C-alpha cells in the first residue's frame, strides 16, 4: 500500500472531523448545491454565492455546505439537497438566490421544510 502524505492525512482528518460533526449532531445539517453542467447553466453558482453570503451574515456556525453533480433532473435545476441530522433529506428544485436564503432560514435554522420549493422527501438515504 502506498504511503500517505502529510497533506493526505490532513484531508482525511478534515473529512472525518466533518463526518463526526454531522453524526454527533454538532452540525445541524448539510446543504448540497447540485453543480452539474445543467445546474451551472441554470444559475447554481449564484445560488451558492447567495447561500454563503447569508451564512456569513447570520453567523451560521453549525451547517456544512457541499456541491455535487447533476441530480438527474436537469430541467428542475438549480437544485439543492438539505440533509438535517437524523432526518430524511429534502430535495429543492428551481432555486434562485431568494429561495435558497428562505430555505436556510426556515428549514435549516428553524426546522420547517419549505414545501412549496421541495420536490420530494426521503428519496435518499440519511448519511
Amino acid at each position, binding site marked *: 500500500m502506498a504511503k500517505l502524505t502529510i*497533506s*493526505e492525512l*490532513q*484531508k482525511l*482528518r*478534515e*473529512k472525518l*472531523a*466533518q463526518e463526526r*460533526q454531522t453524526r454527533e449532531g454538532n*452540525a445541524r445539517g448539510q446543504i448540497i*448545491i447540485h*453543480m*452539474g*453542467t*445543467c445546474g*451551472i*447553466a441554470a444559475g447554481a*453558482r*449564484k445560488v*451558492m*454565492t447567495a447561500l*454563503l453570503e447569508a*451564512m*456569513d451574515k447570520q*453567523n*451560521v*456556525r453549525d*451547517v*456544512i*455546505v*457541499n*456541491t455535487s*453533480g*447533476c441530480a*438527474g433532473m436537469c430541467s428542475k435545476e438549480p437544485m439543492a439537497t438539505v440533509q438535517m441530522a437524523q432526518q430524511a433529506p429534502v430535495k429543492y428544485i428551481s432555486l434562485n438566490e431568494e429561495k435558497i436564503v428562505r430555505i436556510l432560514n426556515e428549514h435549516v435554522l428553524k426546522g420547517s421544510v419549505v414545501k412549496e420549493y421541495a420536490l420530494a422527501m426521503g428519496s435518499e438515504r440519511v448519511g
Partner: protein
Amino acid sequence: MEELALHILDIAENSIRAGAQTVEIEIVEDVQQDRLHITIRDNGKGMDKRTLRHALDPFFTTKVGKRVGLGLPLLAAAARQAGGDIAVRSKRGAGTEVEAVFQYSHADRQPLGNLGATLETLIIGNPDVDFRLLHRSPKGEKQLDTRDIRAALNGAPINSIEGIRRVKQSMEENGWL
C-alpha cells in the same frame, strides 16, 4: 453558459468527479499575442482512449443512465466561436488536462466573468480537494493555493463558517475578490 468562469467551474467539477485530489487552473491573458489561455489540469483517474476520442461529442457520456455530456462540447464551442480551439490530453490513471485557447479580442469571445465566485464555489463545495490557481493578465499576476488556507484553519472544515470566512479572506488578500 454566458461567461468563461462558468465553463471553468463546470470543467473543474468534472475533475472532481474523476476523483482528483489536486486541480490546477491557469488563466493567461496574453494581450500581446491576442490570446487567452485557460488550462485545467487534474490528477484524477484520466480517460481511456475511447472516452478521450469522444470527449467533445455532446451525445457521449460515461455516466450510466444519461445520454448527453455537454460540459466539454460547450467549452469547445465557446473557444471555436472566438477564433480558438480546445485540446484535451488524458491518459488512464494519469489525470486530464483541458486547454482552451481564444482570440483575446474576438467579438464573440465570452467575458471571463466572475472568477471569484467560481473559485469560492469550487473551494468550499469540495473541501477534500486542493486547488492551485493562477491568473496572469496585463494588470499582474494572482495566485492561490488552498493548502495555505487549510494550514491556517487548524483542522476546521473548509466548508464550515470558519472555512468560508478564511477562503474569502485569502481570496481578498490575493486580489481575487
